[in-house]
């Protein structure tokens, strides 16, 4: 077997790769924060006694959980500028980067909605009773008593999902945004060193994700132990 690997392209490529990693992490943070925020709102809507409100949220979740992420990325890339144009009447290209942010936040929100809803339902009903009995309003009860407990219960799931989101950020290549993997691809193609770049990318993803999952595991076990 004659493996002729040439790693000399790597050092020069590092700044560009780092820039790609920066975008991957930014996308992860946006999908996590946006997804959790939007997902919490959706979860509250799904638990609402108002049928219209709860079925809207159910439909949202149903749709986004039934389509591939790639499709959601395309939709946002093509549809969001059209929607803005329809509202504002001016052609407003938002660029692939922002449409990626929006697509990921909206897509992950559907998942987090289900996670947070399960978390809320796992908090004993007596907690709500006790909080209301102290004179707190329903909104205060949800925000300060129920949601913190729900998020805490669901933290292992949320952390595990973050790792998956980080891996999934590589899908933005479909709208030509350079995340870490996209940057590696570009350099590899330019310098005809795809194998070296993909091996390197693989090692980086492995180290980051493996370390993160070990961290989640340790954290979960500590919780069970106490």
């Amino acid at each position, binding site marked *: 077997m004659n493996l002729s690997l040439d790693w000399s392209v790597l050092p020069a490529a590092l700044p560009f790769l780092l820039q790609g990693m920066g975008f991957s992490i930014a996308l992860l943070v946006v999908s996590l924060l946006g997804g959790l925020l939007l997902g919490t709102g959706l979860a509250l809507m799904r638990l609402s006694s108002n049928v219209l409100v709860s079925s809207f949220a159910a439909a949202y979740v149903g749709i986004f959980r039934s389509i591939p992420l790639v499709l959601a990325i395309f939709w946002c890339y093509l549809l969001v500028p059209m929607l803005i144009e329809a509202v504002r009447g001016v052609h407003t290209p938002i660029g692939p980067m922002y449409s990626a942010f929006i697509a990921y936040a909206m897509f992950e929100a559907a998942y987090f909605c289900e996670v947070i809803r399960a978390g809320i339902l796992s908090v*004993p009903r*007596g*907690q709500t*009773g*006790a*909080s*209301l*009995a*102290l*004179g*707190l*309003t329903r909104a*205060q009860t949800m925000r*300060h*008593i129920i949601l*913190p*407990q729900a998020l*805490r219960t669901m933290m292992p799931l949320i952390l595990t999902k973050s790792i998956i989101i980080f891996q999934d950020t590589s899908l933005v290549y479909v709208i030509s945004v350079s995340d870490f993997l996209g940057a590696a691809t570009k350099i590899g193609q330019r310098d005809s060193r795809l194998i070296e770049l993909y091996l390197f990318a693989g090692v980086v993803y492995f180290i980051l994700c493996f370390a993160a999952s070990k961290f989640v595991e340790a954290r979960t076990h500590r919780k069970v132990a106490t």
Partner: protein
Amino acid sequence: MISIENVSKWYGKTQVLHDCSTRVAAGEVVVVCGPSGSGKSTLVKCINALEPIQKGRIVIGDAVIPAPASKLTAIRARVGMVFQHFELFPHMTVLQNLVFAQIKVLRRSHEEAHARAVGYLKRVGLASFEAKHPGQLSGGQQQRVAIARALCMDPACMLFDEPTSALDPEMVNEVLEVMTELAAEGMTMMCVTHEMGFASKVADRVIFMDEGRIVDDCASDQFFGGTTQCSERAQRFLSKIISH
């Protein structure tokens, strides 16, 4: 202080309270007992509107239930409630449990809320537990913290919903002692409990409920005194729970 007037309540089509009426005077201690499913917990939860009523009304001081949702928080803040399962907030420390509603509902300053919390913790004998989380406390300790939490709100009256039913036997007394002290200080109390010893010693009146109705409502020495003073249904209940 508390006046319950012809209260009826339904869960769907099932009627769980039938035309219940009674009064609790200021400083009075009333024990509510009866077999499980008799509606005693439900009745107590109606008093601070945790359970809505469909008929009749409840007057607490100058507040009347049913009331619009916007007024309920003010009513609830004035009525202290202690639950069977303590319901301390597990993500907060003992101290945070005690100060949170004081700050959010009564708009007290942090210093004032803190001072009051420390005072009541001392009173229930848990002064050194401020920084602990509820999960680190025994059941009896948690229930005493729950009582302190309710007292921090300066309630006009206190409701207890089977406060010792979820406790190990050796922890029942520490909670009953706190409640007895409270009664001695003149707190108006309505207490759902199976602790007949506490009822006969501390209660001024005993209400016996069965199938959603108030069957007996009499002075506690009458209830426990003779065999003929209370209803036959209550006598059967008493003979069952006292015989073992």
